[in-house]
């Protein structure tokens, strides 16, 4: 299955990038055989570390010449296998392009290379009064390039949107090896290529520079943590808050299972029979916040919240957030391995969805605990299993699949912020009609006719083109 990469390609890469920036010995490649989706592994044929757009363009030109696939990669935190070198190829590591090139407050933008970690940018902006809004849980490691590739979100997307809402411009190496700049001026003529490149999971080109929009820091916050008897009460409170016309900056849900894990690890003192907690934050000018907080407290009370804590200092706010931020890590105490799903449903369907997740877990005998960006209807069920037990692995994957199918049945989607990668590629046909997948296939073909950027990810390229041709003919009712 592994492709034989011609020696001439390796030599070419060494010449262009310097031998020190090219790995091709099998022992050196093992680290790159998977990302944060660890249930699938495949060793690449080579790994390169370009340091400039020019070098990326050289890599693209050389790979194209030899018809060898390229897999762009940042920190490798993809939970969907977005960086899996399916069928081998050259992994293009962008982590050494990690400079913040410009912070321009007057124009409210920053210019960064793809390997800059999300948190690195956040730290560089501290004290300026501005920040980069997307804050995925992986932000300590995940790179801006990776955030762009997956259209990353985080807890604050409810109010502030996802990555695509915060990208003003891109420098991209296209399939023909050309380096193009899109933006950063608003409203350029032509098609919004930026909009389609963001979230394209490295399948349309390799981003070498990003102009990100900076968002003013909130002047004040009110952070609350409410404990509910049942998940239903918590999710109903979420719906009610939104229906009251309040857009909190975050509204995070944790269910009993994950609370138990967090409690075991960090001893926050949650009552053991608590059904769910919500961490709710509103931000904005101080003038309106107390009123909003009162409304939220009232709504939580209506749904029998048994305890509502309100942070009165930045330190207390940190504490309230801590249990949410440590949640996923704490699952390590429960099980040797876990699979985090990323489903999304209309938010009023959340109570139903969380009930179904519990049922599906029982059916497949998989323990499932939940965190959710509840305000967005975005659930992150964490399926616990032991990787060494093939049966358990299979059961977890089957349960994961069924959860996502339920999301589709609820009118939702199979990913809100992690991407399709390899993990969900088979489900694309459940979510979209052949004509829809055909349209996506045409976009991919327009960008990358040779099909060398991250093949086998996001959508089954060859398959879609084939189906599209057939279906588009048959879908059309006979004229006349």
């Amino acid at each position: 299955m592994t492709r034989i990469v011609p020696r001439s390609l390796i030599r070419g890469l060494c010449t262009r990038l310097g031998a020190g920036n090219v790995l091709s010995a099998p022992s050196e490649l093992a680290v790159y055989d998977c990302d944060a989706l660890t249930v699938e592994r495949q060793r690449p044929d080579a790994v390169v570390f370009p340091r400039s757009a020019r070098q990326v363009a050289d890599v693209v030109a050389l790979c194209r010449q030899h018809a060898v696939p390229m897999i762009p990669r940042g920190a490798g935190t993809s939970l969907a296998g977005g960086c899996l070198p399916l069928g081998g190829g050259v992994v293009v590591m962008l982590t050494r392009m990690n400079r913040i090139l410009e912070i321009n407050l007057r124009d409210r933008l920053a210019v960064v290379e793809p390997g800059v970690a999300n948190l690195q940018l956040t730290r560089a902006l501290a004290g300026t009064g501005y920040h980069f809004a997307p804050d995925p849980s992986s932000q300590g490691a995940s790179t801006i390039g990776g955030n762009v590739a997956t259209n990353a979100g985080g807890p604050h997307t409810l109010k502030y949107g996802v990555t695509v809402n915060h990208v003003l411009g891109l420098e991209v190496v296209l399939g023909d090896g050309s380096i193009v700049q899109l933006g950063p001026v608003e409203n350029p003529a032509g098609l919004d290529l930026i909009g389609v490149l963001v979230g394209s999971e490295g399948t349309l080109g390799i981003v070498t520079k990003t102009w990100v929009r900076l968002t003013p820091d909130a002047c004040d916050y009110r952070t609350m943590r409410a404990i509910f008897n049942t998940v239903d009460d918590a999710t109903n409170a979420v719906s009610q808050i939104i229906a009251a016309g309040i857009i909190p900056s975050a509204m995070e849900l944790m269910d009993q299972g994950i609370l138990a894990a967090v409690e075991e690890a960090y001893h926050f003192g949650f009552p053991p029979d608590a059904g769910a907690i919500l961490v709710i934050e509103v931000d904005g000018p101080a003038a309106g916040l107390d009123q909003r907080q009162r409304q939220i407290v009232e709504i939580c009370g209506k749904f029998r919240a048994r305890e509502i804590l309100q942070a009165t200092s930045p330190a207390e706010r940190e504490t309230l957030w801590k249990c949410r931020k440590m949640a996923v890590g704490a699952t390590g105490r429960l099980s040797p391995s876990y699979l985090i799903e990323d489903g999304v449903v209309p938010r009023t369907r959340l109570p139903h969805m969380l009930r179904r997740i519990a049922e599906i877990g029982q059916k497949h005998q998989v323990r499932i605990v939940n965190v959710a960006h509840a305000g967005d209807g975005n659930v992150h069920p964490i399926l616990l299993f032991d990787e060494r037990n093939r049966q358990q692995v299979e059961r977890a994957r089957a349960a994961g699949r069924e959860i996502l199918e339920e999301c589709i049945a609820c009118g939702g989607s199979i990913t809100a912020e992690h991407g399709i990668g390899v993990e969900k590629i088979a489900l694309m046909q459940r979510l979209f009609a052949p004509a829809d997948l055909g349209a996506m296939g045409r976009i991919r073909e327009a960008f990358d006719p040779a099909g060398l950027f991250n093949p086998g990810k996001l959508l089954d390229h060859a398959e879609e083109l084939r189906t599209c041709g057939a279906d588009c003919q048959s879908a059309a009712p006979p004229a006349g």
Partner: protein
Amino acid sequence: MGQIANLPRLRQVSNLPHMTHRMMSTSTLPLTETIAAADEAAVAAAVRDAGQHDTAVYPIGGGTTLDYGARPSRPGIGLSLANLRRVIDYPADDMTITVEAGLTAAELTKCLAEKRQRLPIDVCQSNRATVGGLLATNLSGPRRYACGTIRDYLLGFRAVDGRGTAFSGGGRVVKNAAGYNLGRLMVGSLGTLGIITQATFMVRPMPEASAVLACDVPDFNTAERLLAALVHTQTLPAAVELSAGSCRQDCPALGPLPEGHVARLFVGFEGMTTEVEWMGGQLRSDWRQLGIDSLLSASAAAGDRLWQWLTEFAADLQISVLPSATVGMIQRLLDLVPGGSIQAHAGNGVIGLKLPSSVLPFPLGEGRTHSLPLPLGEGRGEGASPEQPHDFALWLRQQLRPAVAEAGGCVVVRRCPAGAELTACEVWGPPGDGAAVMRAIKDRFDPQGILNPGRFIYDP
């Protein structure tokens, strides 16, 4: 429904299901006839039919932006979406809405207002402009500073491509990373990749209160100083607008710009009543500290009229630069176009320029015709004499575009003047980075090139 002149012949189409007719003004398009589709199947059938006869198709919504884009390259049929006007689904608690493309912006606003929600996009002529047209043109108004553009609200859509195949993109949930974001590509593509038949939007709660504060600016240095100061304001403006030049004497509630001032800066706020009041007070004190005394503010009712007035500014040209280059660019524009009128989304660097009708060498919309040459500005360029009529396209190429390119910006002709006969390159500018990919996408969605041929960027 008013009868409008210059109506092309209407065709009774027997082989297209559910066709009805509707009158509309389509005088700027080379239409042999206009048909009105009743549903998506009819749109698909009409496109397929046109494809078989290699006839161009010009999708038409409310007919408010038919002069947007370059000169159509060949005659064809007008395909009206005005009868696709259903609200398909409005789960208000999910804050999403799915509607058909022919629904007018005003109807959409009304529907959302019943649940105290809104789509925070400013729309010109909202009684006529349709959802489909809004998406195709991607026009926006003052609120884009805080709220973004319609691209930020489109969650999913259905459309018919140039082969007559219906397809969809996105979904009905507020957060969705499954597959390519085709919606972003469709928005602003002027119907050249597909004819949008249905759209799902994320909507927002209606703000409780809004206010507009303004001040008159004595010189452009002060304008830049005020704009730069807004970067560090504690307030959260919803809109930051700058008006300059002539023809802006009709400002409701605030009156004309007094002598000795070059521009008027507007800052809009929205939110809870307490927030809006606090932000207004805060900005007043910020401005006082910056030495601005002549503060203007509008009452709530007048404030609505002001928003409306800011929204309805019908620019002939749109110039985009970085926000920091906005004031410099405005000065340059006023220099290049004496008598021009400007309204800028100054926080975004998006500048609208209205040409003075008295100096135009060509008819420019209803009742705005003239035959005098456009001055080239203080002897710049060859042949600046008024005796020698100038070519608008030449002026764009030789004067305006280089000046804007120097500032790293770009120019789009928003209203293609009848008789100006502009090519795509003249309207949209020379092909930039990514042009080859755009062309490749177009070829795959409309291989025969029948959707709005000539009007968009593809044929410079």
